[in-house]
C-alpha cells in the first residue's frame, strides 16, 4: 500500500472490558467511569486502530529503518463500549518529500457496523532515503 489514496484491508478489534480496564489503568484512568471497563476512554481509539495503522506504516516504508511518530490527530463520533466490534481501515493520505525526514500522513477510520466511531491522522517521519 504505497500509493496515496488506496485503502488498506479492514482490521477488526473485539472490545472487551478487560482490554478497556487494562488500558484505563495503564494511562491512569482508574478513578473515572472507564475503570470498570464498560466504556472506553477516548484515547482507547489508538488501541483498536493500532493493527491497521502500523500494518499500513510498515507496508509503506517497506520496513526500512526507524520511523518517528511526529503528530497525531483524533476525532471521535460515538462512544465505544465492551462488546463492540470495531473495524478500522487506513490509507496513506499524502507524503511530503522535503527535508531530512520525509513525512507520511495516514488516515484511519474506525467503524462499528456502518457507524463511524473515530478517525485520525497519523503523521510519521521517516529517515531520509529510507523510502
Amino acid at each position, binding site marked *: 500500500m504505497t500509493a496515496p489514496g488506496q485503502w488498506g484491508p479492514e482490521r477488526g478489534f473485539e472490545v472487551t472490558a478487560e482490554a478497556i480496564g487494562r488500558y484505563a489503568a495503564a494511562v491512569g484512568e482508574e478513578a473515572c467511569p472507564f475503570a470498570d471497563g464498560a466504556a472506553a476512554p477516548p484515547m482507547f481509539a489508538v488501541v483498536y486502530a493500532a493493527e491497521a495503522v502500523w500494518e499500513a506504516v510498515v507496508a509503506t516504508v517497506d520496513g526500512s529503518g526507524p520511523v518517528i511518530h511526529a503528530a497525531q490527530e483524533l476525532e471521535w463520533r460515538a462512544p465505544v463500549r465492551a462488546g463492540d466490534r470495531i473495524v478500522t481501515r487506513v490509507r496513506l493520505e499524502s507524503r511530503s518529500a522535503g527535508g531530512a525526514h520525509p513525512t507520511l500522513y495516514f488516515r484511519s*477510520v474506525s467503524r462499528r457496523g456502518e457507524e463511524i466511531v473515530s478517525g*485520525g491522522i497519523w503523521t510519521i517521519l521517516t529517515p531520509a532515503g529510507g523510502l
Partner: protein
Amino acid sequence: MKPGDRIPSLRLLPGDDATRRYAEASGDHNPIHLDPEAARAAGLPAPILHGLYTMAQVARCAALSAGELQLCRLAVDFRALGFPGEEIEVSGVVEDAAGEGGLRLRLVARQGQRRLIRNACALLAPLQPSSLSDVSGGG
C-alpha cells in the same frame, strides 16, 4: 469558562513500569520503550515514554474541564522525549468558544523544561454521530 481562562492542570508521575504497562495495554511493544539496551542502540539515554501515552494525559486533562461535553477532537505535536520517573504536568487555557456550547482548549505537556507535547488543540462539544468528516473522511 471563557477565552483565556486556565483549566485545571494534571500532574502525574509515570512509574518505572509505566512503559511496560502501556505496552501490554496498547500492543505497542517497540523495544525503545522497554529495553535499555535497545534504547541505547537507538541513541537514547534510556527507554522513553510512548508518545500516545503522553497524548492520553493531554486527553485526560482536557476531560477534566469537559463537564457535560465530550472530547470530540484532539490534535498534538510530539516535540520532546518523555521518560519514566519524571513528573508530567499538563496545563491549558480556553482558546475560544466552539459553537453550540463547545470549547476549544490549547494545552501543553511538560516534564521539567521539556515540552513533550506543545500546541495541543482539544475540542469539547457534544458528540456528533455522523458519517464522515474532514478528519475521518472516506473508507
